């Protein structure tokens, strides 16, 4: 039960972190220059962006939880559970980031989920 809750939290934090980080970077603006002054400006904006901070925090939390899970629970139980995060992140992208995801992309994402589940269960 404890493991299941931790896995749920891990998957949720992972997907949420990616969505937040994307939201933050869209607000910071496109990184399309290598000019030092403009890059510094981008870094400054990135460091003060709340979504980016929240995203990095979520991703760090999910990674820590993942490491903890690996030492508590069976690998064959933990690893396949990382697969659904692809669909979850895409759902977040659709509803929270307003990305338009066509049928081809959904089918591809589901193939990836199944593949990752198979690989990590083997």
């Amino acid at each position: 039960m404890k493991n299941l809750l931790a896995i749920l939290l891990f998957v949720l934090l992972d997907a949420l972190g990616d969505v937040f980080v994307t939201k933050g970077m869209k607000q910071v603006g496109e990184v399309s220059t290598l000019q030092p002054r403009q890059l510094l400006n981008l870094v400054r904006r990135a460091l003060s962006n709340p979504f980016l901070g929240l995203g990095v925090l979520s991703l760090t939390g999910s990674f820590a939880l993942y490491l903890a899970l690996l030492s508590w629970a069976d690998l064959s139980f933990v690893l396949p559970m990382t697969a659904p995060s692809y669909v979850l992140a895409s759902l977040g992208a659709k509803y929270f980031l307003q990305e338009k995801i066509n049928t081809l992309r959904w089918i591809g994402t589901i193939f990836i989920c199944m593949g990752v589940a198979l690989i990590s269960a083997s």
Partner: protein
Amino acid sequence: MKNLIVVLLLVVLQTLGGVCLSRGMKQVGVVEKLNLSNLPHFGLRMIGNPWFIVGLLLLFAFFLLYLTALSRLELSYVLPMLASSYVLTALLAWLVLGEEVSIKRWAGTLAVSVGVLLVGLSSRKNVASSRLRHSRE
């Protein structure tokens, strides 16, 4: 094309970073039960391990490039494309390390490859249709 190069670079950085990190972890020793009392001990030994440090640096570079990619591309494109690291890992394990890869793992690798291909194609379709829209306007 430029997007694919960025994705490829991301996958290589992530895979190499993971390989270095796990090699470092194996040298440091198996963590049977990680808890608060042995955390500082393992932490110090990890920081002293060159493989671990190189792995960490590679993953940091991966994350910076990941953020750059996300500033320009869709999450629903970038994240699934990164799953091709599973394909690269299986191929490396098979070709370079000479490991035996199970049928189940090959099947999963094939499914991931098909998925990555479809997601890759979906972005081309998106670009094409938005170009069409622009030309109509």
